[in-house]
C-alpha cells in the first residue's frame, strides 16, 4: 500500500522485461558453448555472475507484490522465486556456481540448462503479458470517461 497500483505494475513489467533480456543472453551464451565458440570456464563465469541478480529481482518483486497486497500476482511469482532459491541452495560445497564448468559438459547438463532457460523464457513471457494486463487494468481503474449519476455518458457536446 506504499505505492500506487500503477507504479507497482510498472516496476513489475520492467523487471520482467529485464529478466527476459537476461534470459535471452543466457540462451545465446549457452548456445555459444554448445557450438564451441566459447570455453566452459568463460561461459560459466558469465552466467554465474547474473544468477544472484536474477534471483534478487525475482525475490524483491515477490516481496513488493506481497506488501502491496497483490495476492494473485504474488502467488504467480512465488514458485519461480522458490525454484531459483532452491537452485542456489542445492549446490554442493565445491561447486563453482549454478553453472559449473566441470560438470556442464557431462550428464547432458548443458541440455538441461538450455531447457531450463527455455522454460524460464516461456514463463516470463507469459508473466510479462499478465503484468501488462494488470498495468492496463490498473490504469483503467480510475474511470476515464465522465458520466452522470445515472451512468449516462456525456460525450462532450
Amino acid at each position: 500500500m506504499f505505492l500506487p497500483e500503477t507504479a507497482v505494475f510498472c516496476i513489475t513489467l520492467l523487471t520482467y522485461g529485464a529478466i527476459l533480456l537476461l534470459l535471452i543472453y543466457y540462451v545465446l551464451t549457452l548456445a555459444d558453448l554448445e557450438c564451441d565458440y566459447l570455453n566452459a570456464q568463460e561461459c560459466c563465469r558469465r552466467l554465474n555472475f547474473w544468477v544472484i541478480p536474477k534471483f534478487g529481482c525475482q525475490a524483491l518483486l515477490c516481496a513488493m507484490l506481497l506488501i502491496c497486497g497483490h495476492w494473485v500476482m504474488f502467488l504467480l511469482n512465488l514458485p519461480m522465486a522458490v525454484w531459483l532459491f532452491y537452485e542456489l541452495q542445492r549446490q554442493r560445497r565445491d561447486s563453482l556456481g549454478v553453472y559449473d564448468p566441470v560438470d556442464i559438459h557431462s550428464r547432458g547438463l548443458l541440455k538441461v540448462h538450455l531447457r531450463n532457460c527455455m522454460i524460464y523464457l516461456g514463463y516470463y513471457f507469459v508473466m510479462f503479458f499478465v503484468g501488462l494486463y494488470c498495468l492496463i487494468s490498473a490504469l483503467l481503474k480510475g474511470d476515464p470517461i465522465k458520466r452522470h449519476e445515472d451512468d449516462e455518458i456525456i460525450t462532450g457536446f
Partner: protein
Amino acid sequence: MQSMNLNPINGPNPGQSLARRDYRGVASSQPSSAQQLQTSAANTLLAASGPAPSLPNPMAVPFNANVPSNKSPASVFGGVATAPKLVTRPPTEQKLPYGVPAPTAAGPEPNNNAPRAVQPTMPPTAQRPPLWQPGVAAMPANSIMQSALGNSQGFMPPPLPASQNVPSQQQQLPAPGMFGAQQQQHGNAPLQYQAQNVQQQPLSVAQQGFSRLWGQDTIDLMQNRHILSPATIAPPKVVLHNQFHESINCSGSIIRCTLAKIPESNSLLQKSRLPLGIVIHPFRDVNSLPVIQCVNIVRCRLCRTYINPFVYFVDSKMWKCNLCYRVNELPEDFQFDPATKTYGDVTRRPEVRSSTIEFIAPSEYMLRPPQPAMYLFLFDVSIIAQQSGYLETACSVLNRHLDEMPGDARTQVGFLCYDSFVHFYSMAEGLNQPHEMTLLDIDDPFLPRPDSLLVNLKECKELVRDLLKQLPKRFAHTHDPGSALGAALQVAFKLMQASGGRITVFQSCLPNKGPGALEAREDPNNRSAKDVAHLNPATDFYKRFALECSGYQIAVDLFLMNQQYSDMATISGVSKHSGGCVHHFPLFQKTKQHMVDSFKQCFKRYLTRKIGFEAVMRLRCTRGLQVHTFHGNFFVRSTDLLSLPNVNPDAGYGMQISYEESLTDVKTICFQAALLYTNSEGERRIRVHTICLPVTASLPEVMHSADSEAIIGLLSKMAVDRSTASNLSDARDAFINATIDVFNAFKIAQNLPSGQSGQLIAPRSLALLPLYILALLKHPAFRVGTSTRLDDRVFAMDSMKTLPLDQLMKYIYPELYKIDALVYHVRNSNISLTQDEDYDDDELLPEMQRLQLSAEHLDSRSIFLMDCGTLIMLYVGLNVPTDVLEALLGIRSTAELPDYVYGLPNVVSAESDALKRFMLRLNYDKPYPPLVQIIRQA
C-alpha cells in the same frame, strides 16, 4: 535387409548374398535368433546327415573362428562333470559332423562337459574328506542375486555350502596337486541352451551347437555355481562384416565397448537395460606402434576424423568418412606407401592398415612451441610428515632415478617444502649448495625470486642431488604441526605458469594453514555406518585451483601418505580436474619395510613412466551417437574435448554414449579417440585409436554380445558419481537394480517363462555380472557395515574412476589361483633349470585356471595365489606337503612362517622358478611389480 545409401561398409552388393558370405555367422541377416533355430534350421540340420544345404561350406569356419582350437567349446565351463540330469539325451549327439561342436577331445560325453586339455594327464582323483570347512564364501553369487531377483519363493538355491551338503560336494575334490577338477557341477548340465525346449532333446542338441557357434549359449546361474571359466572371462569378440573382417580392430586393452554389437536404436538399448559406453586406456604402453611423419595428415574435412582402416574408398582419389559419411579427396602423396616405396595402392598405407597409430604432428597442431618437461616436487615437511619418514624414501628414489625421468636437454626440476611456511630452494649457477628461502606470508604468497627456483636438470644435477641428500636431514627435527598446502600450491602455480608441467605433491596430513585450510570431518566412531557422509569436497578451493592449472597446462599429482584423516575427498580435487593422478599410502611408516617397498616401486614407476604434456583428447563417434558423460581425471573443455594437462600411461577413462538418432540404416559404427600430446622430447604427437563395431537390431544378439567387464567398469564409474551426487545406499541399490533389470530383460528377450521357475538364465556374456556386482558391493568403495576409513573409501572411488579396465578388474575381483597345478606341472614335465632361458614363458607354464573367490575353494593342503593388482598374496594352507613348502618357500612346515612375510624367499628349485615365472606373467601388464605377501592359514 535394409538397403543402405549412406552406408560406407556396404559395397555394391548389399543384401542376401553378402549376408551369406558373412562367414563368422554373426551378421544380423543370419538365421541366428532362437526362434528361427528352433523351427526350421535345427530341424533340417538334424534330419540331414551331411552339411545342411541351407548353410553351405563355411560352417566349419565359424566354429574354428569362435573356438580356440586346442579346447572344445564345451569345455569352457569345463571340469569333470558329475552326472548331469540330462542323461536322457539321445545319442543323436554324435551325429554332429558338420561343425556343431562334437568335441574332439572329449568324446561323446552326454552333456558335453569335456575336460580341459590339461586334465587327461592328471592321475585319477583321490577321494578326500573336506579338511577345510568353508566358513565364509566370499561370493555367494547365486544366493544373493536370487533373493535380489525375487523369483525364488519356495526355491532353495544352491548357494553357500550349507553344512549338510558340503561333504557331498567335496567328496570328489581331487587331492592337492590336482587342478581344474574342482569345477563341481550341480545337477543340471552346465550349459542350458534356450531352456524352454529342454523336453525336445534332439532340437536342443542342434541348438546347442548353433548357439555356441554364435556365442549365444546361456547358463542357468541357479544350477551352475562355477562359472568363472576362460569362456566367461574372455571379452566378446567383435565380429565385423565381410569388408572389414581383415581390418584389425583396436586392441581390447585400449578401447572396450560395453556392447560388442551396438543396438540400432535407443529403444532397443533401453530394452536390453545395459549401459552403453566405452572404457579407454589411450596412453597405454604398447609394444609396436606405427609412428608416421607426413606433411599433411589425412582427415575428414567436415568432422576432422583421422583416416582409419574402416573408411570406404570410393575410388583411388576419394574416401568416405566412416563417422560423418562425407566424401573427401585423398591427397596425392597418400598413394605412396612408405614401407614398400611404391605408388598406387592406398590400402597399403599404415593409416589404413592399423587402427592404433601415432602421427608426428606438424606445426598446425601447436598453439605454442612444445613445452619442455617440467617437474616440480612439493614436500610436506610438517611434524606428522617427518614422523612417517616418507621424505627420506622419496628423496632417495628420486635421487636414484633422476636420470631416468623422461625429458630432453631442456628438462627442468624444482623443489618446494612446506609446513606452516613455504620453503624455496634456489639452485642458481655459481652456488655451491642450494639456498633455502622461507616465505612467511602464506596468506598472500609470492615468489621470492623470479629465477633459479626451477633449474635445468642437466646443468644443475649436482646441486639437485645435493639438495635431495640434505632435505631429509634439514627437517628431521621440525616440530611444526602446520601444513600450508594451499599456499604451496599457489606459489607452485606461479612457478609453473609460464610453461606448464607437472606438480607432484606429497601430503601427509590435513592442510590446516593458509588458503585451502580444512577441518577434520570424519567421525572415527562412525566408520561402519550405513550412511557415509562427507564424500564430497568441503571447499571449492582445490577445484578452482585445478581448473586454473588446467588452463595453464599444469597437472597436479598427489601422493597422500596420511597418518590420520586428511580429507582425500577435498584434496584430490586438485588432481581430478587437472588431469593428474592420485596415489594413496595410508599409515605410511618408514619402519614398515613392506610399505616402503611398495611406495618405492610405485614412485619409481611414477618417475620413469612415459608422460605426455599439454594433451587434449577427443572422442569422435559415428553420426547418431554422442558422448553423454565422461569419467576420469580431466577437464571437459568443450562437448567432446578433454583437456589433459598431463597424460600418463596408467590412466584410464570412461565415456557413456547416448543416441542422438537411430542407427537403422548403418551396419557398423566407429569410435575414434585421438590424443594430441607433447612427448618428453618436445615432439608433438597424435595417437589415434579407432574401434569399429557392428550394429544389430536383435535384442538377444545385443545381450549375448555384452562385455561384462566393460559394463562393470562403466557401472562402477557411474556408481561413484551416484554416491557423490546422492548417497552411497542409492548407489548400492542401483547396482542391484541394474543387475535385476538386465536379467529380466534377458528373460523377456528370450521369451523365457516368467515367474518362479527356479532358474536364472543368463547369457554367457553376462554370467559373471552378478558376481562382479557382489564384489563391488563388498569393495571398500561401496561397502557398508565394515569399518572403512573415509580416505580409503574416497581413494577406492577415485581408483574406480581412473584405473584402466584390466587393473580395475583385478582391483574389484582379484584373481585366485591354486599353485598346486604349477608344482604338479613342473614335476611332471622334465624341465630342468638350465634350459629355462631359451623357452617362451608360456610353454613352461601350465594353463592356470582362475578360481572364484570363495572359501570353498580353499583347502589346507594347497597354496593359493591371489593377485589383487598392487598386491599378490600367497596363502599357505596348514597341511601343505613338506616337499612343496621346501621347494617353494624354503621352509619345512607352515608353522614356521612368521606373521608378516613380504617378498618371495630366494629358493633355487624348479618349482620356485615356475612360480616366479607365473608371477612375471601376471605382472606382465601391470605398471609395476606388486608386493608379494605370504600369509599362512591360521
